[in-house]
């Protein structure tokens, strides 16, 4: 399990989630994103192309981060969901809450 953060030349923060996003590590992701938000970043992509599974706590932290980023005038986009993760977002109807693209590159182009 690992989170990676990199900033695109246009200032978009791309967060990679390797392994899983679950109750045991969600706070680490949340803090990393909130730190970047505090430092002035406003556009975020979370890339799940290397993610195996996400539990409801992981989903919850995405909802929370999305709200906090929007409150600061920013936007959070999600990318790289595999078929199972896409289904998870659809059945929880969270696909209606987030802008989801197939790849991080597509998310980047859409900003």
């Amino acid at each position, binding site marked *: 399990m690992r989170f990676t953060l990199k900033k695109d030349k246009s200032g978009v923060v791309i967060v990679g989630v390797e392994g899983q996003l*679950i109750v045991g590590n969600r706070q680490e992701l949340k803090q990393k994103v909130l730190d970047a938000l505090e430092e002035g970043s406003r556009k975020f992509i979370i890339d799940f192309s290397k993610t195996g599974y996400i539990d409801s706590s992981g989903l919850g932290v995405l*909802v929370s981060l999305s709200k906090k980023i929007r409150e600061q005038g920013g936007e959070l986009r999600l990318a790289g969901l595999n078929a199972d993760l896409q289904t998870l977002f659809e059945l929880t109807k969270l696909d209606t*809450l987030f802008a989801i693209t197939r790849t991080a590159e597509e998310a980047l182009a859409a900003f």
Partner: protein
Amino acid sequence: MSLRLDVTPDSMRLDVPSDLGMVGDAVELVASHLPPGTLSPRRISFNLRTALAEALGNAIRYGTGEDPARVVRVRVELGRDYVRIYVIDDGRGFDASRLPDPTLPHNLEHEQGRGLFVMRHLVDDVAFNEKGNGICLTLRAG
């Protein structure tokens, strides 16, 4: 803290300390010791892992209050055409019938309240013991 999994041909037993940081390792330990053939690799890698992480997370947060002195018990029954996972804590239990629908528009932006909903969609059967402090997840072959 380390985890010790006891494995027999038809069962597994694991006691998980009440520490949310142990959930990922516990899930991996159980998932990686399932005998091949009963469940597809995809159902193990997604459905089982997600549902078990949910059940353990709930038991640790709400059942044992993240008290490191307490443990959550995981018992796995390995049938010819099913895997049944029991996750039991020593807490007071809860009433699963009183949980709101997390997909209703006014609940969508809530951070919590999706765990049981997710589990019910990922496994074939979810059952609770009478006290509400034990959950049984059944995944059938096929």
